[in-house]
């Protein structure tokens, strides 16, 4: 399939866009990035909240929503060496769906609160985020994750990794904004191994420069705090 038929409309710092890129990269699908202009800075909170990317364009057909894109990518393209983003067994699939739903609805929601809120609400969000990390640590521990199989997908990137991975890039920024530490290495060793493994895996090529990203997120926080 020619690469010009697969495009991702995204913004360089968007973790949602990166989910789509992780999925395509993990499946070995060549694609073209169409970068949206940065209109987040100096704009209102409403725009930040309603940013409608990513969009996957496959043979001209548009598909929004990062979670839908990941499943679509898994269903359309064959998995190299049987490395599916979602496992083939129905029970394992249901478990993977449960955990990416958890990552999106619980952890991501808490992380967003850290970014958008202040004071007690922010503090509560920090506690909730750490509880979620602890839960996910338990998932990896139960799956006997190791250096050879560090991902939620086991020895390869799966859907949960695609959903959670991009948001983990924002962890250093959340620590500064929320004035806390995740302490992955000290308290959540499986999550720490996972965090490191992502950065040396095939999807590492998609990851933006960490200094640039940090600067962007701290700037975004300033915009949000003005309102």
């Amino acid at each position, binding site marked *: 399939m020619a690469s010009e038929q697969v495009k991702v409309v995204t913004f360089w710092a968007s973790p949602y866009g990166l989910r789509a890129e992780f999925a395509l990269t993990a499946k070995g699908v060549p694609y073209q990035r169409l970068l949206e202009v940065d209109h987040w800075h100096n704009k209102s909170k409403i725009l930040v909240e309603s940013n409608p990317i990513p969009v996957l364009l496959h043979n001209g057909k548009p*598909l929004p*929503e990062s979670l839908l894109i990941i499943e679509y990518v898994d269903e359309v393209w064959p998995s190299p060496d049987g490395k599916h983003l979602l496992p083939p067994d129905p029970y394992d699939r249901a478990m993977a769906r449960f955990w990416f*739903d958890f990552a999106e609805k619980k952890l991501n929601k808490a992380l967003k609160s850290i970014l958008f809120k202040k004071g007690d609400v922010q503090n509560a969000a920090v506690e909730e985020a750490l509880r979620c990390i602890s839960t996910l640590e338990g998932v990896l521990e139960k799956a006997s994750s190791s250096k050879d199989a560090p991902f939620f997908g086991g020895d390869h990137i799966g859907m949960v990794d695609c959903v959670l991975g991009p948001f983990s890039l924002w962890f250093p920024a959340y620590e500064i904004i929320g004035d806390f530490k995740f302490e992955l290495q000290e308290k959540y060793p499986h999550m720490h191994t996972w965090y490191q493994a992502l950065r040396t895996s095939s999807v590492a090529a998609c990851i933006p420069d960490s200094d640039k990203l940090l600067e962007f997120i701290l700037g975004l926080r300033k915009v949000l705090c003005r309102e």
Partner: protein
Amino acid sequence: MSHSDVKVLSSWRSLFGVRVLIALKAKGVEYEFIDEPDLGNKSKLLLESNPVHKKIPVLIHKGKPICESLIIVQYIDETWPSQHDKGSFLPQDPYERALVRFWADYVDKKVYEGCILILKNIEGELMEQGRSVVRESMVALDGALRDVFSPGPYFGGDQINLVDIALASYLCLIETMETLGNFKVLDESTCPHLCAWVKAVVQYPGVKEGLATAPSQKLLESICSMRKTIFGLTE
């Protein structure tokens, strides 16, 4: 497969549970219903089966728990073959599958949002917001039936799909929403396709039986009682 292999841990009041029952009945799968009567005092089984969210429904298949209603429905679809020459709850084509997931997710977000505002409030700004969200979501879903999922009558065409199951569960709640919100949820002039959908889907094998487990009037009485005792609302 003995029906004790398949257990549903839920409450008759749970619309999310109704979705699971609809899916099982549509597939002709026998199951054992385990009642969770008091969510203020959760059972050991629930806490063990769903330690993360502690919510119903939970499907327990051969001892293994599956949680979250739409995840359960997809699991049911992938595990059991369909009956009566019907296909699966999701189409074969990946793009169409994505559209079905999009709209099922829309029901879960928007319709739910509107419902909760109506159920948890008395007349005022939040109630008006609830009515508005419900009306808008009905119009949007009507448009989807007309443009995305035509010719219907179901979102799955001539059979039900994930969107039909997600939305059909809310039919049990229409009487409650209309009574508490003092409005008409489905207007023939703005949602003609959805109105036709309602007439068709309530007769669909599996849906009819699933909806019958949560009778409208009984649900209204139960919710009115909960509004007083749990939310402290006075009508």
